[in-house]
C-alpha cells in the first residue's frame, strides 16, 4: 500500500513533468511560425535600423562603421530641417483639420435622425479607396488650368490658386487630400464614443439651464475625453509618417516645401543610394514616434483597466 502510493506519486510527478514538456513543445510548435515572422520582419529590422545608421553601406563597396558621420551628413543637408519643419507643420495642420472636423461632423451626425446610413456610408467611402487612387484624383483636381478646384473658384468669381505649384499652398493642398481621405474613420470612431454618453447627464444639464455649447463643453467633451486623447496621439503618429502625398503629388517640391521626413528617408536610400543616411533619419523618426506610441498604449491600457469587468 505504502509502496504503491509512493510509486504512484512519483509516477504522476514524472508524468506531470512529461506533460509540461509536451505542452511547452506543442505551444512552441504553434508559436514557431509567428516567431519566425516577427523575428525576421519586426525584431531584426529594429536592430538593423540602429546598425544601419552607424554604417556606410551601398551594397556595392564594402560596409564600414562610420560612427556619427551619417548624422553629420544629414544635419548639413538643407532638406533635413525643411523635412522636419514640413512634417511638423503638416501634422499641426492635419490636426486642426483632421481632428476638429471629424469631431464636429460626428456631433452633427449624432443629432440627425434621418439619412444616417447614407451619411455614414458617404463619409467613410474615401477611406476605402486605395490611397494612391484618391491622391492621383486630387492631383487632377489641383491642376491650375482646367482642374476642378480652380474651375469652382472661377465659378464663384474668386481668384484662382496655383495649389501644388506654389510653395505657399502646396503643403495645405496635401493636408486637404489627407483630410478628405481619412476623416471617415475618425468620424465613425467619435460617433461610437458619443453614443456612450449617458442621456441622464444631458437631461440634468438641461434642467440646470445649460445651453447647447455649454452642454458640449461640460458633458460631451469630458465624457469622451479619453477617446479624444487616444485619437489625438494616433493622428500625430499617423500624420508624421506622411509619404504618399508628397511622393505622388509634388516630389517634395516646389523648393522643398513639401518634403517630409519619410520622403527624405526614401530619397536617401533609393535616389542617393545612401542607406546609412536613410537609416539615421529612420532612427530619429522612430525615437520621436516611440514616445507618442508609449503614451498611446499607456492610455488605452488605463482605459481597459478602468472599464467595469464584463464577459
Amino acid at each position, binding site marked *: 500500500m505504502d509502496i504503491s502510493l509512493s510509486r504512484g506519486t512519483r509516477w504522476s510527478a514524472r508524468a506531470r513533468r512529461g506533460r509540461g514538456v509536451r*505542452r511547452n513543445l*506543442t*505551444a512552441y510548435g504553434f*508559436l514557431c*511560425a*509567428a516567431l519566425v*515572422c*516577427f523575428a*525576421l520582419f*519586426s*525584431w*531584426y529590422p*529594429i536592430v*538593423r*535600423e540602429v546598425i*544601419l545608421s552607424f554604417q556606410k553601406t551601398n551594397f556595392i563597396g564594402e560596409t564600414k562603421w562610420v560612427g556619427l558621420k551619417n548624422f553629420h551628413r544629414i544635419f548639413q543637408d538643407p532638406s533635413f530641417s525643411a523635412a522636419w519643419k514640413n512634417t511638423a507643420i503638416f501634422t499641426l495642420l492635419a490636426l486642426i483639420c483632421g481632428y476638429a472636423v471629424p469631431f464636429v461632423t460626428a*456631433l452633427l*451626425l449624432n*443629432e*440627425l*435622425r*434621418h*439619412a444616417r446610413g*447614407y451619411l455614414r*456610408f*458617404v*463619409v467613410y*467611402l474615401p477611406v*476605402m479607396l*486605395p490611397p*494612391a*487612387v484618391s491622391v*492621383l484624383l486630387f492631383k*487632377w*483636381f489641383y491642376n491650375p*488650368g*482646367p482642374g476642378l478646384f480652380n*474651375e469652382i473658384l472661377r*465659378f464663384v468669381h474668386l481668384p484662382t490658386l496655383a495649389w501644388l505649384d506654389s510653395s505657399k499652398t502646396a503643403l495645405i493642398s496635401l493636408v486637404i487630400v489627407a483630410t*478628405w481621405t481619412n476623416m471617415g*474613420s475618425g468620424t465613425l470612431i467619435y460617433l*461610437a464614443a*458619443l*453614443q*456612450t454618453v449617458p442621456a441622464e447627464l*444631458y*437631461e440634468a444639464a438641461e434642467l440646470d439651464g445649460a445651453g*447647447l455649447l455649454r452642454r458640449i463643453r461640460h458633458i460631451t467633451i469630458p465624457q469622451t475625453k479619453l*477617446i479624444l486623447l487616444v485619437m489625438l496621439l*494616433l493622428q500625430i*503618429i499617423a500624420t508624421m*509618417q506622411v*509619404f504618399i502625398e508628397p511622393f*505622388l503629388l509634388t516630389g517634395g517640391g516646389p523648393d522643398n516645401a513639401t518634403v517630409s521626413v*519619410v520622403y527624405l528617408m526614401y530619397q536617401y536610400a*533609393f535616389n542617393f543610394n545612401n542607406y546609412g543616411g*536613410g537609416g539615421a533619419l*529612420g532612427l530619429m523618426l522612430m525615437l520621436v*514616434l516611440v514616445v507618442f506610441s508609449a503614451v498611446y498604449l499607456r492610455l488605452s491600457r488605463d482605459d481597459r483597466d478602468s472599464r467595469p469587468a464584463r*464577459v
Partner: protein
Amino acid sequence: MSNVLDRPVRTTHARPAVRRARSPRRADTGPRTLVSPHSLRTRRGRVIYWTVLTLTVVVFTLVFVFPLYWMVTGAMKSSGELVRMPPSVFPEHPHPGVYEKAWQQMDLGRYLLNTFIYALGAWLIQVAVDVCAAFALSKLRPIFGNVVLGGMLLTLMIPPTVLLLPAYLTVRDLPILHLNLLNTPWAIWLPAAANGFNIFLLKRFFDSIPSELLEAAAIDGASAPRMLWSIILPVSRPILGVVSIFAVVNVWKDFVWPLLVMPDTNRMPVSVAISQLSQEMPQNVLIAALVIASIPAVVVFFVFQRNIMAGLTAGGLKG
C-alpha cells in the same frame, strides 16, 4: 505595412447598445443626445432640424460623392473636352470606350489579379499564423510565453514606416537563409503575418473562452490542434471577421511597401502600377484606370459595410 489609423480603436466605456423599447409615442427618437427631444418637437425646432439635415446631406454629397462623380464622368470625356474651360458637367459625347482602352492599354486585369493574390495570401497566412500564436499564448501558456507576447506587443510601438529601409534590406537578403524575396508574393505575405495588433485582439478574445471547455476536451483525449479547430475557432467567428477585414483592407490599401518590394512592373499591385504608369497615359485613360481600380474597394465596402464599420471599434468587443 499599414497606416496606424487603420487600427481599430477602443471607445470608452463601451456599453452594450441598449435599444429602448419601441413605444408608439416616441417611435422615431433614439436614445437622447445633445439636443433635447422637446425642442425638436417645437415648430422652430423642426424647421431648424430639417434645414440642418438638408444642408448636411447636400454638403456631404458635394464633398464626398461629387469628386467621384467627376471622376466617373471625366473618364468618358474626350481629351479636348477635359481641358475645356469652363468644364461640362455632363460629358457631351460620352465615350465609355475609354474604360475598355484603359483596361487593355494599362493591362489592369493583371494588376488587379496581382492585388487580389497578395490580399488573399496575406489574409490566409495572417489568420493561420496569428490564430495559432494567440491560441498558444492564451491557452497553452508555455514558459516565456509572456516574454514572447511582450515582444510582439512591443512592435505596436514602432510604426512600420520607420522600419521601411531595414525591412526592405531584410526582404532583399534574408538573414541566415540568404534568400531574395523581392518580386515574390512572400515579400508581402510574411511581413503581414507579423502583426502584433492581431495577436493582441485574438489573444484577448481567446482569454475570454472558459478553460473548462478545453479541460473537458483534454479528458476526452482531444489534442491541441483538435481543441483549436473544434472548440476555439467555432466560437471565435466575430473576432476572425474583424481580423480578416483588416488583413484584406491593409494589403489592398498599402502603397509604400509594395512599391519597394515589387520593383518588377509585372508584379505590381494595381495602385502602384497606376501611379508608375500615370505619366505616360492620356488624362482620360488615367482617370478611367482610377475608376476601375476603385471599383473592387467600393463593392467590398457596399457588401461588408456593417462589418467594416463595426470593426473600427473592434477593441470594444467583449474581452
